């Protein structure tokens, strides 16, 4: 990097939170992810929160078209993308308006002053220019003519106005990188690859990026520049990982460890489509992907592949899970392995497609006709998507059961530094298909519902296996033979057996790990992507002398067998969820303890300060 001796004082800070915000077409997601790479490159710990509208290109300048990318990076343990931002980069008035509440007093706002003209102010609903009317007095506003400076930089390139203006996000990126002393290399390398075939665009963007960087050095507007030291993280090899990528690799790893081909049948839906995009590139890992005609065909095709002896997987989001519920019931009845990934989003109905929520827990646990229990797992961080996805597959294959694997939009799109696992560190998944030796087990021939004593799993007999011809279906099965049976006693027996099988999954759930104090005043019980905010809050709350711990439930069904014992060690129990209190309903009915529910339904993850308040309220 062409760093000159800094002329300005450099202040070492432990962490910072930046929010890039602009129009949907301003390239803010790209800017944010490039800054993320730079921070990762500088070995900071980090967490990100991409936040974009459901419309692809909402009208320019409007508040509903604002796209933002927030990230927090630091030399300290970073578990959330930050409650408030230290720097907001606002590409237009709408971006300022939408995000101003997140900018606390004395924080900085870089504004593209070129965009603060009448029309844009009107579109954002400003009656007066906030840059001039004194309303931003307590914030540190840094006006930059981003558009003009970009145009000046590229005036001799021969590129069109549109193309030139499109690269102004690189100016913002360059400036932000300078301000926090993050390296330009990752962005330069990315531009080189991205525009390898269009060198003029590559060069223009590179030029603007550097221009932004050097602007910081030369302008008088900045008195101080920041630096953030490397984070102390466990030794090993790291990369920045997004949840969707980790999830895809976790599924692929399960295919590798089980020796099975993965069949991923799916229908595009936000925010689960990324999983299809990732997996469809991995055919040489034995991953077959199928874009079905609808959600029902997607899960049907996956179940068909499972029947054929493959690892059938389907991915969706809330509304899609609703459509898949009948086939999930069929998978419960036919006792075939199947993994349904549900990247949750705000609901009900179409709800908030690009916003996050944990409101499909009860749907996953109970959203089927009849008594149709199945294991439900939830991933807790972008990196954890890998391990949880692997675990979901292992459960499905070991117990011959459909499994719902919950993620959410925040996890799927969010990223963090990830200690790269090795395949050797993962447990083997032993898959043994039934063969002719099974036939000899029974006098009347093959018994497709003769169960394993330990797991209660039934044998998996692939079509094509001689002598094991059998018929599966959604009608109630006779115990052992699998023949159609309407016998009352048999139905009760089979209902209990199916439930018992799922309960036995608890045998492979590891001991519950308590973060913070092992016993004491308050236990925060969370699941899924609230983990970061909860653990950060526990760290905060313990500073006040309270004895506080937290657990994150990867298994929502069955619950860990030691959960009751863990709960008993604390005086107060609180359950924060990004829904109206779904896990808490399950816990209350199971343990009959006075759990306090903490809920948020804003399409946004918890701030850790919100959990800190909840902890304080619980014990006061």
């Amino acid at each position, binding site marked *: 990097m062409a760093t000159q001796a800094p002329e300005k004082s450099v202040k070492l800070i432990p962490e910072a939170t930046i929010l890039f915000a602009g129009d949907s077409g301003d390239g803010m997601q790209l800017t944010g992810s490039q800054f993320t790479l730079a921070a990762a490159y500088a070995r900071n710990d980090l967490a990100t929160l991409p936040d974009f509208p459901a419309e692809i290109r909402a009208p320019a300048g409007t508040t509903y078209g604002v796209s933002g990318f927030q990230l927090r990076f630091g030399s300290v343990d970073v578990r959330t993308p930050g409650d408030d931002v230290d720097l907001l980069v606002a590409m237009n008035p709408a971006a300022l308006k939408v995000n101003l509440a997140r900018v606390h007093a004395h924080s900085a706002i870089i504004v593209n002053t070129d965009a603060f003209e009448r029309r844009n102010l009107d579109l954002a609903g400003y009656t007066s220019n906030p840059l001039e009317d004194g309303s931003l007095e307590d914030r540190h506003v840094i006006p930059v003519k981003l558009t003009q400076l970009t145009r000046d930089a590229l005036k001799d390139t021969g590129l069109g106005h549109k193309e030139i203006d499109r690269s102004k996000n690189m100016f913002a990126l360059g400036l932000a990188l300078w301000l926090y002393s993050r390296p330009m290399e990752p962005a330069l390398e990315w531009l080189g690859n991205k525009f390898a075939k269009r060198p003029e665009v590559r060069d223009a963007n590179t030029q603007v990026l550097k221009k932004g960087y050097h602007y910081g050095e030369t302008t008088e507007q900045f008195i101080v520049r920041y630096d953030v030291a490397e984070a102390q993280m466990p030794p090993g090899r790291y990369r920045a990982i997004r949840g969707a990528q980790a999830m895809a690799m976790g599924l692929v790893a399960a295919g590798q460890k089980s020796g099975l081909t993965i069949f991923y049948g799916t229908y595009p839906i936000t925010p689960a489509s990324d999983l299809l995009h990732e997996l469809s590139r991995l055919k040489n890992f034995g991953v077959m992907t199928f874009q079905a005609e609808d959600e029902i065909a997607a899960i049907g095709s996956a179940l068909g592949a499972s029947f054929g002896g493959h690892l*059938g997987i389907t991915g969706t989001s809330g509304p899609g899970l609703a459509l898949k519920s009948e086939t999930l019931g069929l998978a419960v009845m036919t006792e075939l392995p199947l993994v349904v990934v549900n990247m949750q989003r705000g609901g009900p109905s179409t709800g908030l497609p690009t916003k996050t929520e944990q409101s499909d827990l009860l749907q996953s646990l109970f959203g089927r006709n009849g008594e149709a229990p199945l294991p439900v797992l939830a991933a807790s961080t972008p990196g954890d998507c890998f391990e949880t996805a692997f675990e979901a597959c292992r459960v499905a294959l070991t117990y011959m059961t459909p499994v719902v694997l919950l993620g959410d939009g925040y996890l799927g799109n969010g990223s963090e530094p990830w200690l790269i696992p090795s395949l050797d560190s993962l447990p083997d998944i032993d898959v043994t298909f039934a063969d002719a030796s099974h036939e000899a087990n029974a006098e009347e021939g093959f018994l497709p519902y003769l169960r394993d004593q330990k797991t209660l799993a039934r044998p998996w007999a692939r079509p094509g296996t001689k002598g094991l011809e059998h018929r599966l279906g959604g009608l109630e099965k006779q115990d052992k033979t699998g023949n159609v049976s309407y016998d009352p006693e048999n139905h009760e027996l089979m209902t209990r057996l199916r439930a018992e099988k799922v309960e036995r999954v608890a045998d492979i759930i590891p001991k519950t790990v308590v973060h913070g104090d092992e016993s004491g005043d308050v236990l925060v019980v969370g699941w899924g992507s609230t983990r970061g905010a909860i653990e950060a809050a526990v760290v905060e709350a313990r500073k006040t002398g309270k004895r506080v711990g937290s657990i994150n439930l990867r298994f929502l069904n069955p619950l860990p067998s030691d959960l009751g014992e863990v709960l008993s060690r604390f005086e107060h129990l609180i359950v924060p969820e990004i829904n109206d209190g779904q896990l808490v309903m399950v816990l209350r009915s199971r343990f009959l303890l006075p759990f306090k529910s903490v809920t948020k339904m804003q399409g946004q993850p918890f701030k850790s300060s919100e959990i800190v308040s909840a902890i304080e309220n619980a014990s006061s």
Partner: protein
Amino acid sequence: MSRKDFESDQDVRWCPGCGDYAILATVQRLMPELGVDREKIVFISGIGCSSRFPYYMNTYGFHSIHGRAPALATGLKASCPDLDVWIVTGDGDALSIGGNHVIHLMRRNVNVQMLLFNNQIYGLTKGQYSPTSELGKVTKSTPYGSLDHPFNPAALALGADATFVARTMDRDPKHMKVILKRAHAHRGAAFAEIYQNCNIFNDGAFFTYTEKESKPENTVFVQHGKPLVFDGGRKGLRLSGFSVEVVDLTNGQWSASDCVVHDETSRDLASVLARVFFKPGFPQPFGVFYAEQRPTYDDEIQKQMELVMDQRGTGDMAALLNAGDTWNIN
């Protein structure tokens, strides 16, 4: 192998006199002739009377959920291309609740056989009209007559670019067997509609075409390369504009050589024939309307897997995990 080897140990539970028995018997008789190992054969069905079919076949079978058999079959066939996959469905299962999957199965050309038992009625739910019931049909759910225009299954399949479209009937097992054998020999999605009598809720729906007295005059059995004549050679179908007309071959004005010669490879002719559909004064066509060779989805998906494998080599998990920018912390 004989017919017996394909009979499962389960009691057949269709109503006595149901047309399904004849279809089951024909399929069980056909199986040994196909030269396919029994364990490679899979029957997949949805929901309805016809969809109980897999339970009675001593092969692999999957009685799935309403309308979704094509989805399961697609996943199974794509991932296990060496299996011989048959879909058994009915007019409600395939054309009402499962209509979407049927058209996509056809356009993708998944190499399976779809046997659509059409009895123009809902049997298992006890007698409501179906999407193939004639307009104005009086049933339990339509005491004043049904209002919806019925589907023309052959035209629908052709509209979905099916590569094999045929029609046969329960009461002509010989013809049925020929058609099903052809369907099986076809590489691609084979759509075979079978007129099937529901003697409980819609008895005699197709008697005009199936009974000795009325059959000759009201049916035309199409065969590739043969002129379209019927009624024992007394009548024929002659092209007239974009349609066909019935001509009398007995009065000396027309002869068989004036009639349309059936060409299975002609999508246009198939469409014309499919449109001769319960048309007053016209015979109902039976036989193979259309057969076309087109790459199958299961072949293509397998090929693409192999191609990527060849180009990129077997996936290296460690390389995948370590891809992109990485850094070490000591």
